[in-house]
């Protein structure tokens, strides 16, 4: 059933407003309303669709307006507004932090926020409030959520040797946000979540509408992006770090370190599930960089690197 609906949704979104698209739209709309009515009791009152959410819709206006836009509209049609991005990122982050809390070290958290914000400034993304957090787990990984939420684990932080390596890791994650990689994934899969599959979270501050969009908990973080998105984040991320004045070889050095880790290490199982192997990332980055960054002299700043307790 899910698959069939997915196919319908995709057909709807692929057609650019010709008669056939309209028919598919009608069909989809009926099915959606059926599904949504089933869940009515558990849904919060419908909020008006966020401004600008349907601006880029290509299907006939009559169709998209009848579909409950508060539930689905901004996911299926058009682009997300900055407010929507932030709302999605906030919900994903709140869930991720439910799985693993922040390290209780204010000095560390502040340091990572300062480095992160300086690198993020080079991305030139206006009106974004960037949040950086170190997660209290020995797992080796880093995460980004839409709107400017960035996390790395204590396990990864421990492996870093200087500020330039931290800047490289954060640059990769910042690139996921600026390139809107997770939003592209959401657009592909949003219908599944929107049909009320998500376990209802009664927690204070939880946004059920966004939760429906992102599925259960923070599982979107376990699904990962496609490998081209990861290669792109490597390419864009090292440039952000270089523009911030750091040694450009920070991220490559971290990838080297990870490539040498025993692959059966439990601490990297999620990383390897959601990312290409570090060796493939090095090779792809090598093709893109070649000699282009040879003349750039950046700082490593090993002395200022915050030592974790």
């Amino acid at each position, binding site marked *: 059933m899910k698959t069939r609906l997915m196919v319908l949704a995709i057909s709807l979104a692929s057609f650019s407003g010709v008669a056939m698209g309209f028919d598919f739209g009608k069909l989809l709309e009926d099915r959606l309303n059926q599904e949504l009515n089933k869940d009515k009791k558990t849904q919060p009152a419908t909020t008006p669709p966020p401004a600008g959410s349907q601006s880029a819709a290509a299907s006939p206006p009559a169709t998209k307006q009848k579909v409950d836009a508060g539930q689905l509209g901004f996911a299926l049609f058009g682009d997300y507004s900055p407010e929507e991005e932030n709302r999605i990122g906030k919900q994903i982050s709140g869930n991720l932090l439910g799985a693993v809390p922040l390290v209780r070290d204010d000095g560390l958290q502040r340091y990572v926020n300062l480095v992160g914000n300086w690198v993020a400034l080079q991305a030139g993304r206006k009106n974004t409030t960037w949040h950086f957090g170190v997660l209290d787990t020995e797992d080796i990984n880093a995460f980004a959520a839409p709107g400017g939420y960035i996390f790395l684990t204590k396990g990864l932080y421990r492996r870093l040797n200087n500020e330039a390596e931290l800047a490289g890791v954060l640059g990769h994650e910042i690139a996921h946000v600026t390139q809107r990689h997770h939003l592209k994934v959401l657009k592909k899969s949003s219908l599944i979540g929107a049909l009320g599959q998500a376990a209802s979270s009664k927690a204070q501050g939880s946004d059920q509408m966004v939760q429906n969009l992102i599925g259960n908990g923070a599982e979107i973080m376990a699904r990962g992006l496609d490998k081209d998105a990861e290669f792109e984040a490597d390419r864009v991320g090292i440039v952000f770090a270089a523009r911030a004045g750091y040694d450009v070889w920070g991220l490559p050095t971290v990838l080297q370190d990870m490539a040498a880790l025993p692959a059966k290490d439990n601490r990297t199982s999620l990383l390897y599930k959601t990312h290409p192997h570090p*060796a493939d990332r090095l090779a792809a980055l*090598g093709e893109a960089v070649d000699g282009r960054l040879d003349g750039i002299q950046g700082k490593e700043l090993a002395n200022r690197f915050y030592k974790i307790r």
Partner: protein
Amino acid sequence: MKKFLIPVSAFLLCVSAASAWASPGTVLRNEQLFSQPTSGSRVEANVAKGASVNILSKQGGWLRVTAGRSTGWIRLLSVRAGAGGSGGSGVGDVFGAATTRSDPSRVVAVAGLRGLNDEDLKQAKFNAGELARLEAGTVTTSQAQSFAKQSGLASVNVPGLPEPRPAQPSSSWENN
């Protein structure tokens, strides 16, 4: 006279380095070994993709390696550390190589540390308190700028890197 001394000392350096801190690596693409960590220096040898090297030291974007009988500098991004072969693609490398080369004691040592997994993330419940803690730690642009200035960091104009030539059509969502 000097000409003889260089290979000898280089050889001695290799021997001592190999026993002390050389680590294995694999060449990721056809490359050249340079006499200095700069592409303007003399080419010492060519190394083929897949060749094994010993990594002796690192300087900026360069690694000093021995490959066969040659020693020289190679681009950092052209070598992967570890003995896992030139590619990481495929399950064979991620899981298979580790079982053949891994030190059993090391695997046992890390097995107790359970990493984050899918189920943890799927079951995660929204934690408003931790989110508030995260958001309270936000710093301003001017704080970040003065932090950068303290250690002499300044914005540098670096052009973006080109996208790779498409090797295969990337999956668009129409054919999902």
